[in-house]
């Protein structure tokens, strides 16, 4: 009945260094199997520590690849390069002659483009004066706006007149052709 808790207490004592509780100590003194367990547990730690070096000495040595001049970082690079499978993507078969021709064409196109669209020259004193005059002209626009609007109105009036003449001549043609008379309706009288 006390075997399991007593053995657990033996293990706990091994791991934490705490004393065995009274019940466990008394049980171990009486129970032969638990006594054996306590003895083997106590021997186990020192035996495992003692045999560790001999056991490790039997492990076959292996290289980590760090001994090379390149060091671990270099090893990573080399290993990655060695393990990397060959790329399945077809390589671009660039031939020298077509490539040279293409480069020439591109260079010529660039030259033409740069010539046709030269950079704007740096502003000169004359340019600045012209710009100032243009700005002054823009500022005087409200004063000239009335005249501009009048011109636009007269143009509309001219358009209306042309349209009216066209309609009138169309009426006359239809009256003559169909032998009918179409009278112009008087405008409704205001109420």
């Amino acid at each position, binding site marked *: 009945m006390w075997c399991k808790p007593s053995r657990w207490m033996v293990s706990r004592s091994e791991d934490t260094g705490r004393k065995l509780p009274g019940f466990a100590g008394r049980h171990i003194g009486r129970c032969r199997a638990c006594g054996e367990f306590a003895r*083997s547990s*106590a021997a*186990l730690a020192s*035996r*495992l520590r003692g045999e560790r070096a001999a056991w490790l000495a039997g*492990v076959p040595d292996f290289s*980590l690849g760090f001994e090379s001049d390149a060091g671990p970082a270099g090893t990573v690079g080399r290993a990655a390069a060695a393990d990397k499978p060959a790329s399945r993507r077809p390589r671009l078969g660039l031939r020298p002659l077509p490539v040279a021709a293409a480069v020439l064409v591109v260079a010529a196109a660039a030259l033409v483009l740069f010539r046709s669209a030269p950079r704007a020259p740096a502003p000169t004193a004359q340019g600045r004066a012209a710009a100032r005059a243009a700005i002054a002209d823009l500022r005087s626009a409200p004063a000239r706006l009335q005249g501009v609007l009048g011109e636009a109105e007269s143009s509309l009036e001219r358009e209306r007149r042309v349209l009216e003449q066209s309609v009138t001549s169309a009426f006359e043609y239809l009256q003559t052709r169909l032998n009918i008379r179409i009278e112009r309706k008087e405008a409704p009288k205001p109420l």
Partner: protein
Amino acid sequence: MAENDPIAEKTDEELAFEARSGSRRSFEELAIRYKRRLFVYLRPRLGSDEDAEDAVQDTFLKLFRNIGSYDPAYRFSTWLYTSANRLVIDSFRRGAAERAALASNRAADGPDPVATGESSGPGGSGLWDAARTLGESRFRVLWLRYGEDMTIEEIAAVLGRTRLAVRVLLHRARTGLAGKLGPAARRAARPQAETVRGAAGR
């Protein structure tokens, strides 16, 4: 290792600190000290010598890249084993295809010769060989506890488990090992028997 080599007398933490400052020689010394230890720790979990060697190499490469984040206030071994554990877990999570490949590799390599009793293990140590047959998780806690002298808290940190879980695993490992060793263990433990009995009686 030459006896008059000052680097051989430095602690792991001192070497790691120097490696963090850019000393490749210190890092190499750490790799020499730990590669076999890490190998025996990872070998039961990975199933083949080749996989274990690859995992050791990957762990050190990872450490080399992240050596700047090492805090000398902590033990180097704890950091190393934690990194190794995470690396192995990541490799197991990589996908079904790789797991299948791993399983086929294992099948090709055959079962662990130590576990099947065909080999006496690396150094012919009966106790450590017996420990390897207990199962991977029990062997790991035994190795960290007695092979690396880690505390329960450190083992819990390495394995990502609670302290109680670690103590339960250790208890089961001890129970299993005591059962496997039988009379041989009793004979070896006899000189200490009276001491333990006396301590228990008090």
